[in-house]
């Protein structure tokens, strides 16, 4: 069985196990209302995770996508509040900001050859700084917020009918499907795997490291823009701390879903499973009314157990395959000499 499908089988199995446990022990988990809310909650992080997974597959990382999302939200509010621009213009400028953020990361990683970790750590500071600068202030200079009650934006936070799936959930799954197609079926997608798995060999075959890295980070910027719009749809405003913890959650989800920091591994199906896993865990824990400390300890331990089990199961399967192949070879040799 290919290592990839094996890995995805494991993470899907663990997700299912978690759902079964929660459904069995509390009756308020497996209701459509709860599932619908659960899907809505994880979709924003899911959209960010799509971009982050791209960066991770190229053998890098993107610690700044959460902060970039915050900056885009704040810029939108800033333009919406202070300037009389039309919605289209504001959306365009916000999109350009997001892509510029992705380009900054791409440029410092690919052209300035700064390791991904340092580059996105530094751009994290830069985006946080920009968010403070775009913040709306009252005449005393204190940061305050304003409601954005523009119909199109507020509609983004809505759902189909009164209890149908939320638009953000639909957007997440559609984007994941598009990204999966991009990774597996297009040239640029293969290059992202190639650069991640073995940069030198990819470059020798004419794959441009610069262009591939820039593509991955610009996609991450685009995801940050889309996530920002849905966040605005949800909260109808933006505040300075928006999204600052999202990058770590997106990275955890991608890695649990099978992406590897060494590069060349991972895909959108795995990442989606990872995002759902984290959210089911968080949502489920809330059903028991544990104290906050129990929630923190138990969810941390569950993630550690998943990581250990995942690696252990892989090793076990790898050994079994090697031993089976060796046994086959041995049988062939014996039969030949016999």
């Amino acid at each position, binding site marked *: 069985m290919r290592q990839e499908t094996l890995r995805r089988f494991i993470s899907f199995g663990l997700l299912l196990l978690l759902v079964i446990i929660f459904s069995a022990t509390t009756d308020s988990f497996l209701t459509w209302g709860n599932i619908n809310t659960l899907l809505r909650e994880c979709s924003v992080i899911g959209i960010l995770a799509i971009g982050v997974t791209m960066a991770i597959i190229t053998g890098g990382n993107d610690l700044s996508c959460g902060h970039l999302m915050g900056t885009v939200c704040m810029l939108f509010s800033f333009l919406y509040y202070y300037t009389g621009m039309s919605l289209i213009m504001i959306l365009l400028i916000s999109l350009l900001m997001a892509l510029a953020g992705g380009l900054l990361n791409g440029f*410092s990683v*690919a*052209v*300035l*050859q*700064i*390791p991904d*970790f*340092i*580059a996105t*750590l*530094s*751009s*994290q*500071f*830069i985006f*946080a*700084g*920009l968010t*403070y*600068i775009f*913040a709306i202030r009252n005449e005393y200079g204190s940061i305050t917020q304003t409601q954005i009650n523009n119909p199109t934006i507020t509609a983004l936070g809505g759902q189909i009918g009164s209890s149908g799936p939320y638009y953000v959930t639909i957007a997440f799954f559609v984007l994941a499907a598009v990204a999966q197609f991009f990774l597996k079926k297009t040239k640029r997608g293969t290059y992202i795997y190639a650069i991640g798995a073995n940069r030198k060999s990819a470059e020798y075959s004419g794959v*441009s*490291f*610069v*262009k591939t890295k*820039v593509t991955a980070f610009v996609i991450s910027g685009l995801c940050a823009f889309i996530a920002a719009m849905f966040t605005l749809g949800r909260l109808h405003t933006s505040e300075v701390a928006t999204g600052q913890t999202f990058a*770590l959650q997106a*990275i*955890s989800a991608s*890695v*649990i879903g099978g992406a*590897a*920091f060494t590069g060349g591994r991972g895909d959108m199906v795995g990442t989606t499973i990872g995002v759902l896993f984290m959210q089911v865990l968080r949502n489920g824990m809330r059903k028991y009314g544990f*104290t*906050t*400390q*129990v*929630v*923190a*300890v*138990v*969810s*941390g*331990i569950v*993630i*550690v157990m998943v*990581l*250990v089990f995942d*690696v*252990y199961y892989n090793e076990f399967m790898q050994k079994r395959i090697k031993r089976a192949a060796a046994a086959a070879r041995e049988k062939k040799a014996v039969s030949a000499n016999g």
Partner: protein
Amino acid sequence: MKEKSGTNAAAGVKKLLANSRIIVLIVLVAFLSLTTKGKFFTYGNVVSILYSISLTGIMICGATFAVLLGGIDRTVSGNAAVCGAMAATVVLAFGQSNGGALVALLAGLACGIVSGFFHGLVLSRFAIPAFLLTLATNEVLYGIVQFITGNQLINVMRCDLMNWIGESRLLGIPIPVYILAVCFVVCYFVLNHTVYGRYVYATGGNRQASELSGIPTRRVIIIAYTISGFMGALSGFVMSCMNKQASASQAQGYENDVLAAIVIGGVSMRGGSGSLQGAMLGAVLIGVITNGLQLLGVPSIYHNLVKGVIIIVAIAWDMLSAARKSGTATNPFAGLFKSKKKVTA
């Protein structure tokens, strides 16, 4: 690992200057000394910078071991919080006596050692990304802190020893700075002058080859994370002394400052290269930037922006100069603009 093969001081200084971070530091210091009309470069201000980085510095002494082995320890903050809370509870139980404080310190450090040992055990046996494991266990540690403190502030106002550590000064220099200096010297010695230090660099560079040349790589990794846990705990104890208080949200966010300093200090994330003095230099650089911005009265909202830009400039300069020196620097823009035109016939 810096090879000291008897190159004389001049060559050493030359090598030092080649490191772009030193140059950025010198430029910053010069600029700040001028613009703050000499207030920057005073004894008091330098001491205040060292004081401001003493807590992260102690954590860096521990976390650098983990990064040199190609891992990361994000639980420095969790260990600090647990140790601070445990120490405060224990010292209160002993009626805030000095003896009680010592027992408290030992109890706190024990927590750090146990936590570090656990991480070493798991990370040396399973190929889990350390970034993710320590991210999850940091959550667990902060959950444990909430158990210990019950989410309340534990005030320790009357313990002389802890107050002495927290607020008094020797020759004008606060005690935490001495503690940082001692930690740095000890860890520097361990990394550069002991067998274990050499094993850390060997295992970080190539674990399989080190295993085959008889190095107990598993034990090396376990000890590294135990040291990191110990240092995180020690920093937590010093923090509680400074604040005369332990809280459930103590030291939150410090793991990012520690990681930033180590990475900016030139310690490679893949392990095997970089030095403790480099990591400490990273911390000093960030300390100087923050201090300078505060002295200049730059509004807080611009601090992040300036810090981000300076870091990118320093690292880019370092990377490009290294590539140019080794003759492999092809024109980076070649890949970007694919020349459509046929090759010049």
